[in-house]
């Protein structure tokens, strides 16, 4: 090759240049909150998180319960309508009283053909039937 690329190993952004399916999978494996936070990294990252196929909501990454609710509803509205491989909803304690937005989450999951569901909530909405728990 006549044009030689100057090797500046330390400054090479290889993460942004990974194949997109790999980036989407990386996002799916992280807490969804961290996945969304990557939207400000650069223009390339702005919409990457919307391709997640695993939703991982964890109350421990929020100091206010209301913030989690707001976050969850936004995610459901903005993620691309792909099928869901897994939904993990960790509310922080085994409450018999699920949060008010729980129905929306599970309805979303079921309408997107969710394969696995993980939650510590005892009382699940009646729409959750025939899903691997």
């Amino acid at each position, binding site marked *: 090759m006549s044009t030689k690329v100057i090797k500046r190993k330390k400054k090479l952004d*290889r993460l*942004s240049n990974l194949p997109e399916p*790999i980036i989407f999978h990386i996002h799916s494996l992280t807490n969804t909150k961290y996945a969304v936070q*990557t939207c*400000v990294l*650069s223009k390339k990252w702005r919409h990457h998180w919307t391709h997640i196929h695993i939703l991982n909501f964890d109350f421990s*990454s929020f*100091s206010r319960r209301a913030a989690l609710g707001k976050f969850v509803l936004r995610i459901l509205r903005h993620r691309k309508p792909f099928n869901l491989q897994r939904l993990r909803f960790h509310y922080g304690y085994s409450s018999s009283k699920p949060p008010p937005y729980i129905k929306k989450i599970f309805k979303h999951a079921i309408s997107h053909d969710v394969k696995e569901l993980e939650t510590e909530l005892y009382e699940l909405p009646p729409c959750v039937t025939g899903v691997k728990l």
Partner: protein
Amino acid sequence: MSTAATADASSSGDTTEGSVRLLTLQSEDGEVFEVKETIATQSVTIKGMVDDDCATSTIPVCNVTGRTLAMVIEWWNKHEIGAVSNEKELKEWESQFDTIDDKSDRDDVYDLLMAANYLNIPTLLDCCTSAVAEAIKGKSTDEMREFFDIKSDFDEKEEDALRKENQWAFEN
């Protein structure tokens, strides 16, 4: 046999060792490895070549250096059925690949990710993807940019607007 990888072995295509067929793989930088077919077919790509009878001559492994290919072969050897006595031992061994402590680890994981993607090795792909996911966890935007050498192409105004728009994701 402790390892099936032999650098600079014959490049005459497939050979046999006992009753085991050997495949010849050549890295991007010209290193040649002889690998048991039973091991190399952990790669879905190579398995497809074997099934289609296309693995009779040297298989070029594009975009993968000899150094990385040696690591991939090490991975295959450990994941061969019966290579380790139990799942716990395997997980312990895998832990050297699933944590990224510094930029050198990070670059190795990128190399392995690209190799696992090209050769289609689901177990290695999963392990390396998890490693990157774990490295992202809990890092602030600036820490992520620094660690992964990501250069922002937003101006200050654009970034502020985006943060505001996604404020719900940045709330604690």
